[in-house]
């Protein structure tokens, strides 16, 4: 299935969980947060929350600003 990660299309196996996105990006879990289709997914729920085809996933972190 195809999911959109920070605006870019990625192929993930059907039934992939949110935790798989962090692996795709090669990111540690610390200092980042994930929203799927405009809703926050808590860190504790990453391993169990399935993604659906066409899901829009945003992975955010802190950058210089303000």
């Amino acid at each position, binding site marked *: 299935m195809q999911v959109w990660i920070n605006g870019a299309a990625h192929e993930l196996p059907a039934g992939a969980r949110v935790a798989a996105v962090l692996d795709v990006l090669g990111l540690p879990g610390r*200092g980042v*947060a994930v929203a799927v289709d405009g809703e926050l997914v808590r860190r504790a729920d990453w391993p169990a929350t399935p993604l659906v085809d066409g899901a829009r996933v945003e*992975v*955010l972190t*802190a*950058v210089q600003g303000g």
Partner: protein
Amino acid sequence: MDGTTLVVGDRKIASRLIMGTGGAANLEVLERALVASGTALTTVAMRRVDAATGTGVLDLLRRLDIEVLPNTAGCRTAAEAVLTARLAREALETELVKLEVVADERTLLPDPVELLDAAEQLVDDGFTVLPYTNDDPVLARRLEQVGCAAVMPLGSPIGTGLGIRNPHNIEMIVAEAGVPVVLDAGIGTASEAALAMELGCDAVLLATAVTRAADPERMATAMRLAVEAGHAARHAGRIPRRYWARASSPDPDD
């Protein structure tokens, strides 16, 4: 009263100068400026992760033992700001948020309707909300009434360096506020930071004035001293203004 400690909600912050990290040429320059400023609380923005940027700014703030204040910069609606704040709380493990909901790119002025809506939602969700607001005493009062832990009126639009365009409004906000008032945005140089404190603000938040100065470290030192000086002057009880001169040396005939 302790001159340097700022109390926001149940937090004690060891400096009245809150810094931003935006605009610094690189992390080395930023580090020297942050150290020189003496800040204990510093803003960051939330953006899509990018392998190139990484989490360098977070690592820096942790190493310097500076508390992180995530902002919602770039949000135009209450819904966007609430989601960004929740993402920041999840990523950074803090309930502090600098709430910014701006109306347009040209002015970057707060949208008061969206701001108040977002503030109320975030307070209800357990956040310690520090809203970037207009220099409007009525809006400041409304933000306090919905439970914001501070109010942060602008001196002038973000990044302009135009100083405090409406000092009387800032004084009115200070006179009415039961929460800390933080002058946020518009500071260009040290005298303006001192003025904010002399008007009775509890703290100053600035970024551009330091990070885009020719010598950020030196300007950060100037801002630290200005905030301390302005705060001391405010609480020292200045002399009344007089129309005519008043000699400070004894009369020669006495």
